């Protein structure tokens, strides 16, 4: 049989076959006890009790009212449960604090790099005297600071913090993660210097020279150690959804990065297919699993209510891994690559609707009917917004892979807007929410100025709204202009200018939001603000353990 046809047919039959086995076993109830597995993140005394350390006491009261008024928000779990929870949180506080602090610093630097890049696109004669500030260097600096600095370290920090809570035991081997995080950060710093001084590898997402990549491979692998060591000690019967995503992500990343950066292995067009195998997998098999792990934990945790369907999450996980890992070729539609490869990627991009639908139904059904809770929980506001953007970004991504749409959007700013919907709208929003939840536990200190959380939220939401909407429209028009042979190329450049200026305004608001966030983060780090260590933490049982009797603030 023809080679192309057999590859396509084989992949197709494999996908469909796996899907049918899956649906069949689901209908036969072979998935086991979904309810027990879904409630694994709660202590028995905790179901129905809301939790949001980022909320003020009044907010938390209203949140509990919105969810289950019969329970008292200040009622607490049993002393034993609270005690083990406190020890679990304490076992991660140092390493998580370090990772998240570094992540926030990278975020601020990356925001400025992004804003400078954005302005340079419509004002090309601005700030041109320095080599390292030229667009072709500051843009990859922005991407790498965001990808490997902010997103990766925030994702790692949040994942490590969740591990003991998911496995109900203290973190084992935190020092490996600390060492891994340090190597990783040294790698990011060195990589940024390499790009700034003109030593880029030249591949998008893979700019760091291979000597520096070793630090990220070793660091990434070391960060996974505490998970494997803690898994050996686990006290839970079922592994919760978030554990699968974290474990798979921590395994996948070092392998992806190692294969992609192996010196002298890749060549010519093959390197292009590898480039987008990596470029899409770093999103699908690294950031997305970490982001979904966080939203699968925090949405039910804040609401005090288990996820809608455990079986759907199982379907979502395996289909995400299978389909997402094969979509990279859609970046090369119309390029000089084998056509079967592009076709497979387009088909699998459409199949991505399955995992996206599974996650969307699962997470949104959990929130459905409780939307009022978003008013009262700062954590939930960011995370639910992020989960919605995940659905939007994924559906948009599937459509963009279709040849007819791709012909317009490929090579334009539309794609840039889409990339930000995924990595910013989804991932970064989920990380903001997670950090707001986590940091009070890490620091034993509440967020000093709750109003700044709202300010941060609205600045980044409005800023990103402007960014995404205008850049999407501008990019689409740019693509149409480039497809029209009667329009000169320079017209396609000129028409984007007002949209690019709008993007700079949106980007400036986002940067401002990040400054507010960083300021608040460090204000908490230095324990500014009124001492309100109280009920918004773990409740009275925990307070009693920590501060002795009669301590109610």
């Amino acid at each position, binding site marked *: 049989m023809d080679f192309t046809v057999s590859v396509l047919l084989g992949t197709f039959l494999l996908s469909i076959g796996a899907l049918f086995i899956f649906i069949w076993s689901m209908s036969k109830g072979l998935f086991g006890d979904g309810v027990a597995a879904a409630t694994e993140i709660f202590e028995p005394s905790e179901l129905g009790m809301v939790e949001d350390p980022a909320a003020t006491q009044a907010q938390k009261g209203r949140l509990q009212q919105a969810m289950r008024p019969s329970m008292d928000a200040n009622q607490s779990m049993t002393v034993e449960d609270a005690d083990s929870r406190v020890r679990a949180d304490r076992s991660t506080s140092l390493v998580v604090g370090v990772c998240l602090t570094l992540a926030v610093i990278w975020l601020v630097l990356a925001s400025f790099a992004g804003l400078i890049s954005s302005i340079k696109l419509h004002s090309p004669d601005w700030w041109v005297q320095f080599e390292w500030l030229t667009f072709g260097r500051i843009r990859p600096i922005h991407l790498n600071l965001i990808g490997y600095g902010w997103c990766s370290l925030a994702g790692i920090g949040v994942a490590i913090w969740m591990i003991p809570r998911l496995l109900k035991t203290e973190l084992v081997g935190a020092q490996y993660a600390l060492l891994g995080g340090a190597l990783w950060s040294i790698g990011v710093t060195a990589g940024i210097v390499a790009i700034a001084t003109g030593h880029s590898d030249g591949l998008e997402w893979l700019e760091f020279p291979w000597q520096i990549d070793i630090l990220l491979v070793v660091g990434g692998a070391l960060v996974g150690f505490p998970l494997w060591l803690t898994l050996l000690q686990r006290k839970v019967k079922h592994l919760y959804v978030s554990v699968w995503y974290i474990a798979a992500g921590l395994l996948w990343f070092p392998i*992806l990065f190692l294969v992609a950066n192996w010196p002298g292995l890749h060549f010519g067009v093959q390197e292009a297919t590898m480039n987008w195998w990596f470029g899409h997998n770093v999103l699908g098999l690294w950031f997305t699993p970490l982001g979904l792990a966080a939203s699968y934990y925090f949405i039910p945790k804040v609401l005090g209510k288990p996820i809608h369907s455990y079986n759907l999450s199982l379907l979502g996980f395996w289909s995400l891994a299978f389909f997402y890992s094969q979509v990279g070729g859609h970046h090369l539609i119309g390029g000089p690559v084998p056509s079967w490869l592009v076709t497979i990627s387009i088909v699998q991009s459409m199949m991505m609707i399955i995992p996206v639908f599974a996650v969307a139904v699962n997470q949104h059904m959990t929130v459905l009917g409780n939307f009022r809770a978003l008013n009262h929980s700062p954590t939930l506001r960011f995370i639910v917004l992020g989960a919605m953007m995940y659905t939007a970004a994924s559906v948009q991504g599937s459509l963009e892979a279709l040849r007819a749409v791709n012909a317009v959007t490929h090579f334009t700013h539309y794609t840039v807007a889409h990339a930000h919907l995924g990595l910013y709208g989804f991932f970064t929003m989920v990380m903001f929410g997670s950090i707001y939840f986590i940091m009070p536990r890490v620091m034993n200190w509440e967020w000093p100025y709750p109003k700044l959380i709202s300010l941060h939220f609205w600045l980044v939401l409005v800023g990103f709204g402007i960014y995404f909407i205008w850049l999407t429209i501008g990019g689409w028009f740019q693509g149409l202009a480039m497809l029209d042979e009667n329009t000169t190329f320079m017209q396609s450049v000129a028409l984007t200018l007002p949209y690019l200026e709008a993007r700079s305004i949106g980007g400036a608001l986002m940067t401002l939001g990040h400054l507010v966030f960083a300021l608040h983060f460090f204000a908490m780090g230095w324990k500014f603000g009124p001492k309100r260590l109280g009920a918004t933490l773990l409740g009275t049982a925990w307070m009693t353990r920590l501060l002795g009797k009669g301590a109610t603030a």
Partner: protein
Amino acid sequence: MSAGKSFWEMDELRLISGAMVILGLATGLLVVMPYLLLENVEPPAGLKAYSTQQLAGRQVYIANGCVYCHSQQPRDIKLAPDAKRGWGRASVAGDYAYDTPHLLGTMRTGPDLLNIGARQPSVDWHLGHLYQPRAYTPGSTMPPYAFLFEVRQGEAKPGEKVVNLPPSLAKPGQVVIAKPEALALVDYLISLDRTYPALAPLPVKQPASSKEQP
């Protein structure tokens, strides 16, 4: 299945092996298969290998991130009117036989450059355009690369390449000298010329199979 553990119950072993098998499958499809198919692609007869100077220029292209605005992959006329813009025929795998790292690109903030050497073979044009793009292409959003040049009051030394600027940019008593990086970059840009006829896209043994492109 009654003993608590179901077939689908996630445990560490299933998770790790499943995750690895799936990654292996994707790597096989998107990395290993293209590797095997493309490793024996011969450079087309019309394609010259880069000279040392051109390779140095290619490094300048990489260092300054030209790839973030310029693609090097004209698309087929059925997909986009790239050929009608003078960007050349749809490229084939053999066109990139000497291109490591690849510079296919993902953006067209600027035009495709795979055949820029055929379109614009003038060294003076390229040097001046790199020094100030808007003096040559009104409305261009390309940054000026002043750091690839040395501006000096007085005369150029022997052996130095003086950039011939248009009257709007030239200042009396001042010379603009192209640094070696600028000369190498221009040498590379002018070498970008894939206007020779393309071979079949993939010299794979496919008896009597239909091929999409001639």
